[in-house]
């Protein structure tokens, strides 16, 4: 990619990201769930399963244990939303407008991707503030930064997946497909209990699930017990997710206009 193509892609992507963020703000039906869902997960999960606090899970507070689950799910919702916006844009014809212009096609994916990462910053902040209200200890600067980075990375990975679905299905009706995979990915990691406590099939699945390393590293970031092993495990997992989902999205992008 030449320097000028790169700068063009960057400027159009920036504009599309800006648009995506504007739309979130102007559509209450999108904005309110993105605010409420991570909060709901935090409060409902930690409240309903408070009893787990008595079990060795690395902390004496199930609320603290749940917090990264909520930030990661919030990021997942931001990613899903990128796919839903793209699907709506394909249905509504906005994507045609973009493709018929000389704007680099890559920006069609890169713009919403950026927006999803930015939205995850918002949802993560909401969850962290709720944690503070729930009297959780501050994770320190490095820990906080890492929680944000994990969320943003997961938002981008799920955005790639959702946009890939949108580019194939070309209808908002495909939203359940986007949601299903993201939910299953997160729920079959270490969302509700650490791996040591998991049994049977879930233990096997979570061992292989890339989201496990991302969630586990977010937890160590929260408890200020990060390790390089955990860090690299998370980075590799993100790379794996981005690789698979990114390729899926780019393939969908290349098929646009073919049939």
């Amino acid at each position, binding site marked *: 990619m030449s320097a000028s193509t790169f700068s063009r892609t960057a400027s159009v992507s920036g504009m599309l990201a800006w648009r995506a963020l504007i739309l979130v703000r102007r559509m209450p039906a999108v904005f309110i769930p993105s605010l409420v*869902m991570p909060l709901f997960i935090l409060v409902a999960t930690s*409240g309903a*399963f408070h*009893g*787990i606090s008595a079990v060795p899970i690395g902390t004496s507070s199930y609320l603290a244990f749940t917090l990264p689950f909520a930030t990661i799910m919030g990021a997942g919702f931001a990613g899903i939303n990128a796919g839903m916006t793209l699907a709506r844009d394909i249905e509504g014809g906005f994507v045609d407008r973009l493709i018929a212009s000389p704007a680099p096609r890559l920006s069609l994916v890169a713009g919403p991707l950026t927006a999803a990462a930015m939205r995850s910053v918002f949802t993560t902040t909401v969850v962290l503030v709720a944690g503070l209200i729930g009297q959780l200890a501050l994770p320190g600067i490095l820990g906080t930064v890492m929680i944000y980075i994990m969320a943003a990375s997961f938002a981008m990975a799920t955005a790639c997946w959702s946009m890939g679905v949108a580019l194939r299905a070309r209808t908002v009706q495909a939203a359940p497909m986007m949601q299903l995979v993201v939910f*299953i990915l997160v729920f079959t990691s270490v969302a509700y*209990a650490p791996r040591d*406590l998991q049994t049977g099939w*879930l233990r096997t699945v979570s061992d292989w699930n890339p989201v496990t390393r991302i969630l586990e590293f977010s937890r160590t970031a929260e408890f200020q017990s990060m390790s390089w092993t955990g860090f690299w495990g998370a980075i590799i997992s993100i790379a794996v997710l981005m690789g698979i989902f990114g390729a899926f999205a780019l393939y969908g992008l290349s098929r646009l206009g073919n049939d």
Partner: protein
Amino acid sequence: MTPAIVQTAALARRSIFATFRFPQAWFPSLFFPLVLMAIFTASFGRSIGFIPGFPHVDGFLSFAVTGAIVQGVLISSVGAGAFFAGDIEGGFFDRLVSSPTSRSAILLSRLCASVVLAGGQAIFFLLIALIFGATIQGGIVGALIVVVLAALLAIPMAGLGIFLALRTGSAEAVQGMFPLFFALMFFSSTFFPRETMTGWFQVAADINPISHLVEGMREQIISGVNWQQAAVSFGIIAVLAAIAVGACALSFRRRLGGDA
């Protein structure tokens, strides 16, 4: 048979067949409760022995199956409401109303269909749980009580869905209410015992009628047949059903223009 009963049966049959014809109508109501039940069981199964206040059970699956049943009834009831709203949007409702079909048959048929489907769902979940090692302390009688209560629970829940359909006339709006009901279930003892909760969350679960409803059903599975608890569940269902059906009847009248 009187015409009203024939009409009700015919319309109920239509609703049931329509449900089977569209996988999106029944698949989520079986799939999601199963997945959550499986994940919760594998996540918490090893821990429950260490949690003060957790009732004595022979495994988390036996505890969790009631939650799955109630959740399944909830999801399919929202689906029933959305289906009804679809009938309103698509004009089938108007066609029915303008035909000599009795008004109560329109409402009753949908509720009957939901009751039948909910009973079937409950049997399905119990069988799956049994296959994966759950036990039913109440035996056949306990299982029957659970199935009957689950089937009856479809009346208030589907009633609520239909009420929303009559008020909004939009399938999307009815589906949009789902997260709210789902939240209500989380703020109860559907997934975990109230005894292990603390603070305001426990207060919320104590007040939430869903807690007592679920516990009355669960008791039959984890402890044995308990008619008193079953009566509590039945009482809650009866009260909720009266409210939901009453609200349906009122909004039905309102939709038809006041004093029908």
